[in-house]
């Protein structure tokens, strides 16, 4: 309960600071480079493979049940845009970026660097959380879209090689299933998940206890809570976009 109150206090404080203090462009650029550029290869590599597995599994089971896999490209494209692209990207960023944020803020807390900031009249939320929040929202949004595009290319490639459907057939099947709203959902999910990662990570960093064990514990909690939050928010957003 106390932790939940601390988290919502942090969210409220971040929103207040976000609207009332000047934007730190240099720190934002540094964080964006870390989040987006630093994560790009691993994200593209992983989502590429996720797309291939999706096509292979879908084709295998459709052939088994209905003896026809002609709808696989369309379904796969839909699944990639609405789920695979943004969710896999966010989960990868949780472990790569979120864990890093928690360890960094946690170490700053336990070595009294955050106290030193406050002594120098610097608000730690403004200094540490805000640039990370904006950079991760922008970074995850861009990565989610790029990952989705890479996924689609990977899926198109495997569909052509393994299932025998040409890229033109893939695209025409995709046009039947996918519309602009799906692309919008991919971007929106990326941005929402991008907000969750730094807020949860910094929250656990600020609560970090002394020593290697304290930092380890905070990092683990941060990754677990961020991942669970992303999955729950994914359900909520999918439900809202599909049924409301």
């Amino acid at each position, binding site marked *: 309960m106390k932790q939940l109150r601390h988290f919502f206090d942090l969210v409220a404080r971040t929103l207040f600071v976000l609207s009332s203090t000047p934007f730190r462009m240099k720190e934002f650029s540094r964080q964006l480079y870390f989040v987006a550029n630093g994560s790009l290869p691993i994200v593209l590599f992983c989502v590429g493979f996720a797309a291939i597995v999706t096509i292979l599994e879908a084709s295998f089971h459709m052939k088994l049940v209905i003896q026809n896999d002609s709808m696989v490209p369309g379904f796969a494209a839909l699944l990639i845009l609405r789920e695979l692209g943004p969710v896999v990207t966010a989960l990868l960023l949780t472990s790569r970026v979120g864990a890093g944020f928690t360890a960094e803020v946690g170490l700053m807390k336990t*070595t*009294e*660097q955050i*106290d*030193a900031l*406050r*002594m*120098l*009249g*610097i*608000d730690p939320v403004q200094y540490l959380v805000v640039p990370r929040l904006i950079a991760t929202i922008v970074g995850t949004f861009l990565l989610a879209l790029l990952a989705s595009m890479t996924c689609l290319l990977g899926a198109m490639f495997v569909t052509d090689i393994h299932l025998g459907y040409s890229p033109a057939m893939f695209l025409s099947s995709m046009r039947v299933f996918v519309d602009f709203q799906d692309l919008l959902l991919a971007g929106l999910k990326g941005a929402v998940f991008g907000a969750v990662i730094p807020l949860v990570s910094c929250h656990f960093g600020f609560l970090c206890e002394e020593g290697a064990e304290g930092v380890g514990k905070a990092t683990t909690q941060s990754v677990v809570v961020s991942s669970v939050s992303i999955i729950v928010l994914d359900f909520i957003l999918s439900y809202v976009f599909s049924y409301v």
Partner: protein
Amino acid sequence: MIEYRGLVKRFGAKTILNGLNLRIEEGEIVFVLGTSGTGKSVLLKNTVGLFRPDAGEIWIQGREVSKLSEHDYLEVRKVCGMVFQHPALFDSMTVYENVAFGLRRFEELSESEIADRVKESLARVHLKGIEDKKPPQISYGMQKRVSLARTVALNPRILLFDEPTTGLDPVTTRAVNHLIFELSRKMKTTSIVVSHDMECALEIADRIVLLDKGSIVTQGTPSEIKKSEIPLVRGFLEEVLA
């Protein structure tokens, strides 16, 4: 100059400061000694508003500060410099940037004036030629001295030291202790030093305060403390005499 009136600080069910009363006069060097967990560091962090007391008052330069907002506390922090138990230097910045950080924040100085102040502050702690290094590239003892330079660069009227020699070898410990004395006297600051080091306290303190379980057990000048028969004081003294 600084006065604590009935100061109480609790963390959950645990009472750390238990109605502490203490007055520190201007220009005094006061050593606060005690075993671990007796509330020494908590006392310092309450002074600068990093913690807030659950009850009692803190008066600094004739002003009650314990209930000030975080924003208003900034004025208090400008006159109080604190050297933390850890060097607390910002790893992503060079030594120069660390020392200049507070100057850029609090004072309207040109870049050349900042450079002069940084150089002067590092010279005060007997450091030179390390401005371009990052904290992990210098020794722990040097990091402590850079931390001291960052604090004195702002010319505070009150200096608070939280176990400034913890983790240092005996030679560096002695050097840092002399630095505290030298800076306090040269800058005519009021200094509170939280420490376990009775030998150093006897050597440079104007007054020694002994804390136990959040309350003051005894206080006095070094010569008065030496004559004390209180078991806790004798425990600290025996270690020095040994």
